[in-house]
């Protein structure tokens, strides 16, 4: 029986809207997440292209579309601020997290534990649609009088409390997005724990499942405080309370009429209590994806599976007690900052262990340089640069100089862009044959990889130099400052590279959409010779994933490097 026939035979005939729009199938929902998130990632990228034009050529009219945006054709400072705030918000909450957790988690976790669907399929559908509504609400803030929310993705008060109405829309959208994440994370954890196939003990989980479960716990426990904070800020804005407004506040030269007595730092604490674990929400699914791909194409077991599992758990736990390293400049005092410096140094240890185990997996391997493997191999040094440049930010002495400069931007973009996004792209190339039954085009993939790899480094590497010179991260036009003018030429390089990076995504998107119908067909259900359960399902998997229940016989990644043989988890015989 061919795969296509098989998947259709398995379906009850459902109308189009039940099958593809309001579907309860985790695979369809995963793809919905993926497509929506791809849209938002591109949109967030385009916002940044506009900003990069302004940074490279301050005050010069934007070609083609400038006149449609502003009167002069160049970005105004207000619009620049709004674009910056929306870039961060969209990329993190509407792009990378829905891609890493929503798309990959949804599609792969049930398959990798051998389940027929998520534990709560209707809840799963609901979490996608709540996310979708949150996205629509967030985008609608562009239509508000005064423009989109412009208080940064961090929305620090008191500026955010006194900002125009778009900020309320931002908060409302966040409440939707947080609710969606909560529903999704409950579902992921329950699915992974309860619906495991026979024989799949916890220590036989693929690393990707561990990573997704750890991520879900972070979302579950770190997001509610931000939801609470969003409610408090909404109350400040709508009902006139003063949770985040201090006494004696002056706005535009006039004394604020609010009762006062609030504490702007309270918001920062509540915000970063989410937003630091959020960093690990961004990175952990990527680590999971990379582990699967590296061991598959290295044809070797992961070096130190248990070490990796414990590192992920420890990382998740520690991520809750490092948040105030974002706030060293708020005058928190030596005792508190010592604590957070210490925890920050400690959390780097499991990250380094994870990276080292991945690196050691390559040792003595016979590596197959496929497109997903190229992206995964690039992930290692990129994530290392991102991680290591974070250390100076975690120590107060160096942070005083680097705080709020381009150095910070360079640091976290190395983690998220050539780090997480490269990993997720690797994941797309890797699981595409499972999702569609066809390969993506190898040549286009290599073009996508090499151009992206060079361009993305040209975008973010100069940021470390600019930041070290003290250029502030939120400047609309840095040429007005002598240290800014001295490094302005870098901005031209970075903006050009950003534009090249945008162009480099065209072959990727083209590849992704056309290979669906025209790509080379897979020879069998396990074309890469991988070991985890999703490769036991047909490609694409039918609605119920596994028409006959799968059983697990061994640990994942049972590759034998000497004999070049592989024993998948689902095959009874040892190869």
């Amino acid at each position, binding site marked *: 029986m061919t795969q296509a026939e098989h998947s259709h035979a398995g379906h009850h005939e459902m109308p189009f809207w039940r099958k593809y729009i309001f579907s309860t199938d985790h695979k369809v929902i995963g793809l919905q997440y993926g497509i929506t998130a791809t849209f938002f990632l591109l949109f967030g990228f385009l916002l940044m292209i506009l900003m990069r034009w302004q940074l490279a050529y301050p005050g010069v009219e934007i070609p083609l579309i400038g006149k449609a945006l502003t009167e002069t054709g160049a970005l105004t400072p207000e619009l620049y601020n709004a674009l910056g705030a929306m870039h961060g918000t969209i990329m993190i909450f509407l792009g990378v997290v829905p891609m890493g957790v929503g798309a990959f988690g949804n599609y792969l976790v049930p398959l990798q534990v051998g389940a027929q669907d998520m534990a709560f399929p209707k809840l799963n559908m609901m979490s996608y649609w709540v996310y979708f509504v949150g996205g629509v609400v967030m985008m609608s803030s562009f239509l508000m009088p005064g423009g989109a929310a412009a208080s940064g993705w961090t929305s620090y008060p008191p500026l955010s409390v006194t900002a125009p109405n778009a900020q309320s829309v931002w908060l409302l959208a966040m409440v939707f997005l947080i609710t969606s994440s909560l529903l999704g994370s409950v579902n992921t954890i*329950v699915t992974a724990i309860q619906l495991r196939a026979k024989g799949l003990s916890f220590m036989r989980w693929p690393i990707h499942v561990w990573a997704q479960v750890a991520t879900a716990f972070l979302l579950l426990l770190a997001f509610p*405080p931000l939801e*609470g904070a969003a409610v*408090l800020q909404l*109350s400040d804005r709508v009902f*006139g309370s003063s949770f985040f407004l201090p006494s004696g506040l002056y706005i535009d030269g006039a004394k604020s009429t609010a*009762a006062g007595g609030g504490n702007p730092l309270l918001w920062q604490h*509540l915000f970063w209590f989410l937003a630091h674990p959020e960093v690990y929400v961004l990175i952990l699914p990527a680590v999971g994806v990379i582990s699967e791909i590296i061991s598959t194409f290295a044809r070797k077991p992961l070096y130190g599976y248990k070490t990796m599992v414990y590192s992920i758990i420890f990382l998740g736990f520690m991520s809750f007690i490092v948040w105030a390293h974002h706030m060293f400049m708020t005058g928190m005092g030596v005792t508190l900052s010592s604590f957070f410096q210490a925890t920050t140094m400690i959390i780097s240890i499991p990250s380094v262990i994870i990276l080292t185990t991945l690196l050691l997996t390559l040792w003595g391997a016979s590596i197959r340089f496929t497109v997903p493997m190229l992206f995964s191999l690039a992930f290692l040094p990129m994530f290392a640069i991102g991680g290591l440049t974070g250390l100076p930010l975690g120590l107060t002495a160096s942070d005083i100089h680097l705080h709020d400069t381009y150095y910070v931007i360079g640091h976290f973009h190395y983690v998220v862009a050539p780090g997480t996004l490269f990993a997720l792209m690797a994941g797309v190339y890797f699981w595409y044959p499972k999702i569609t039954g066809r390969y993506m085009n190898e040549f286009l993939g290599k073009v996508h990889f090499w151009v992206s790899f060079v361009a993305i480094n040209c975008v973010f590497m100069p940021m470390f130099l600019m930041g070290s010179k003290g250029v502030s991260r939120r400047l609309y036009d840095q040429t007005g400052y002598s240290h800014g003018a001295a490094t302005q030429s870098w901005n031209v390089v970075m903006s050009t590279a950003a534009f090249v990076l945008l162009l480099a995504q065209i072959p990727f998107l083209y590849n992704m959409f056309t290979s669906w119908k025209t790509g080379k067909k897979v020879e069998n259900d396990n074309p890469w010779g991988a070991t985890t359960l999703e490769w036991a399902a047909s490609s694409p998997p039918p609605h119920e994933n596994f028409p006959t229940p799968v059983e697990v016989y061994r640990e994942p990644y049972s590759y034998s490097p000497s004999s070049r043989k592989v024993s998948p988890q689902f095959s009874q015989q040892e190869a």
Partner: protein
Amino acid sequence: MSVVIPYVDKPHPVTGVTNAKLGVWLFLASEVMLFGALFSALITLRLGVNDWPHGYDRLNVPLATLNTVVLIFSSVTVVMSWAALKMNNLKQFKTYMSLTLLMSVIFLVVKAIEYNSKFSHVPPITPATSNFYAIYFVITGLHGLHIIGGIIVNAYLLGPGSRMWKTEPERFTGRIECAGLYWHFVDLVWIFLFPILYLL
């Protein structure tokens, strides 16, 4: 072949719980973090100013005490309704669940009287008056929304939802247990909220 989700009515042999029960516990963990954040905010705000008022000077303690009793009573009745199902007595379940709903509505009515006395005060007391009232309105308001959510769920389980008893009694009992867990949590929030807001 259609999708079959295991452990919907029977507990998983390893974890010892059904899917729904694990899900509810996780959900409640996140709720703890939500209210925990708000209580932390209250503490931070209170410690940040010199003249934070005492709750008993500004709020109606007798009414809140009444509400505390009402909620504790409802917690008992919700357990009794679950126990009734365990003893295969649907009629008794309905009695106790109705009592639970009655208690929840009484709670909301008392709450409305309390809120109304603040709004009709001259000058009106609102979140803009001071941060003491602001945090009072936010925490009790959010708690009130949780009560309303519980009422909707419990009313559904008492009404149309109870049809499941005929077809899948075990699953239905599990649902009542989950709803009861949630209801206990909402009570527990009040048990913390009452002394911290009203008595300190």
